[in-house]
């Protein structure tokens, strides 16, 4: 019994159960579909936050370009949906019918070669995981093997976010430009805009998030997780214990990238479009704020942080359209100053000890009454 309790604690079972209770039962029963769909959108960002916990909280490497990987995953999904939309709902008014509308507007007469793989759903699903990881591997290999880290790494990832945005906007005929890829309707003939589809996608999103959290817990509990922590604090000691520090950093960067890619794909499915405004420098920094507010060392904390900041963002932007950016900034500064370990830190250092002392207090009282 004791060991079961320990096992549950170690694997954060109760925290995970509470999160799932909220996401699978409480929110779907209390929120209307519009709000639930918004929640689903926020939860797609939670995948990015999970990646940041692994990369930044655990590995000590801050990336300010996670929007890149979110975008790559999102664009992979959007390209698949767009190809399907263009072939299923052929617009006879187009000069070349059967290709995505924005290509036609940009005088393209056939689908570009690199769009062809996105006619297949299995390839698209693999690409959502692999494309971000491959890009992360290339950047990570170039940086970490040369021992570039810290601020320099953060700045370079930010530059990558800028480059990708400029590239997407500039190649309008191939990428949809600034508007992004819009008007996505069906997934293998299944209308994703209906109410039931929105519910289904929400639950798929939550379950995928659960799988990803469990995967991350598994990585954290493996020797690799221990090594990431060790590297964060004493990089040289790890290196001179016979480990190739760079390869572990590359792994955590690729892991974070793939997670962000899943988030991007779920975003596209639930929101119905993907655009460069979601993946540039500002969104990338916002993603770091999600993780920081929730607690960069805690997977569950990062999920709550993502939800809180996004709800805050929606609330502020509805109530004070001119001031919401300042409010978000104030929230970030406040969190960093007052609670450096985010919400999870407050829970772990303040609420949990208080609760435990209360619990043991009542237990003592009960014992005293008996005697």
């Amino acid at each position, binding site marked *: 019994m004791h060991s079961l309790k320990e096992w549950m604690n170690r694997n954060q079972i109760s925290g995970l159960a509470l999160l799932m209770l909220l996401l699978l039962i409480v929110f779907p029963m209390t929120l209307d579909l519009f709000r639930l769909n918004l929640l689903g959108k926020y939860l797609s960002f939670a995948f990015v936050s999970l990646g940041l916990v692994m990369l930044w909280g655990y590995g000590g490497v801050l990336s300010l370009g996670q929007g890149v990987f979110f975008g790559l995953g999102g664009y992979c999904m959007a390209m698949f949906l767009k190809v399907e939309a263009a072939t299923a709902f052929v617009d006879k008014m187009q000069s070349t019918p059967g290709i995505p509308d924005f290509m036609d507007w940009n005088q393209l007469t056939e689908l570009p070669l690199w769009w062809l793989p996105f006619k297949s759903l299995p390839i698209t699903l693999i690409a959502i995981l692999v494309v971000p990881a491959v890009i992360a591997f290339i950047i990570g290999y170039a940086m970490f093997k040369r021992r570039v880290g810290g601020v320099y790494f953060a700045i370079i990832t930010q530059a990558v976010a800028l480059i990708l945005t400029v590239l997407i906007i500039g190649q309008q005929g191939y990428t949809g430009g600034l508007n992004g890829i819009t008007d996505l309707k069906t997934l293998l003939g299944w209308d994703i805009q209906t109410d039931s589809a929105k519910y289904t996608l929400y639950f798929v999103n939550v379950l995928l998030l659960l799988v990803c959290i469990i995967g991350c817990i598994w990585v954290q509990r493996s020797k690799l997780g221990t090594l990431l922590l060790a590297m964060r604090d*004493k990089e040289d000691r790890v290196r001179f214990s016979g480990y190739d520090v760079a*390869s572990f950093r590359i792994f955590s960067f690729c892991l974070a990238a793939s997670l962000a890619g899943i988030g991007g794909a779920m975003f596209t499915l639930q929101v119905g479009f993907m655009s460069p405004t979601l993946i540039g420098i500002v969104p990338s920094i916002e993603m770091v704020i999600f993780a920081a507010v929730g607690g960069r060392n805690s997977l569950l904390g990062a999920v709550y942080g993502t939800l809180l900041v996004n709800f805050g963002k929606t609330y502020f932007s509805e109530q004070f359209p001119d001031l919401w950016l300042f409010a978000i900034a104030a929230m970030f500064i406040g969190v960093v100053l007052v609670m450096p370990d985010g919400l999870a830190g407050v829970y772990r250092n303040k609420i949990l000890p208080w609760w435990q002392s209360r619990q043991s207090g009542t237990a003592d009282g009960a014992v005293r009454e008996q005697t």
Partner: protein
Amino acid sequence: MNTETNVLVLENLTVGFDGFKAIDSLNLNVRKNELRVIIGPNGAGKTTLLDLICGKTKATGGSIKFNEKEMLGVPEHEIVRAGIGRKFQTPSIYENLSVFKNLEVSYPSGRSVFGALVFKCTPEIKHRINAIAEEIGLSEALAVDAGQLSHGQKQWLEIGMLLMQEPDLLMLDEPIAGMSVRERELTAALLNRICKGRSMIVIEHDMEFVKKIADKVTVMHQGKILAEGSMDQVQLDERVIEVYLGH
């Protein structure tokens, strides 16, 4: 000299920073099962020498042969895997991990990314961790966070972490700096125990301590070797007295 019994052979080793030669055409042999102590005034290049051997600093010339294999230009983690362990001057341990985890992470398996993902702490590894903890006097502290250990215990833990790797050559940079008299005695005894079956290079300033442990002493000065021999020989050397030991 019979070269076969040499574990480490340094030839014409040179490293310069902006024209200043921290190590200048240095030749040094360390034999199997030998405990070598390097002494010398501050800035003589002792720590730099260890940095060169373990690959932390890249030499500008010369050669480092370990078990007859050239180590110059080999990545640091490969040098460690070849059997060279290095302890840093200030205790370099993972403060946020338990003593047990510190030792476990140092065990030489699961060193690749995939290997680390599927690594399991087997009974043999646990047994080994317990044996090493016993050796360094930390059996009672396995569950303690390493950050809470005393300074001396941290130094021992780092030595224990190196022992987990079973290196052929163990290099310790001022292992007793900041230790109490009692801790120094325990460390001397520890070094005398663990030097069996492996070679060691120790940098140290404390002459009493050096006398207790050294097989052979090398005196360095301005990036070069000034004298080499037993402690008694070295102590009588005029030049050594001049630059280091004092009158």
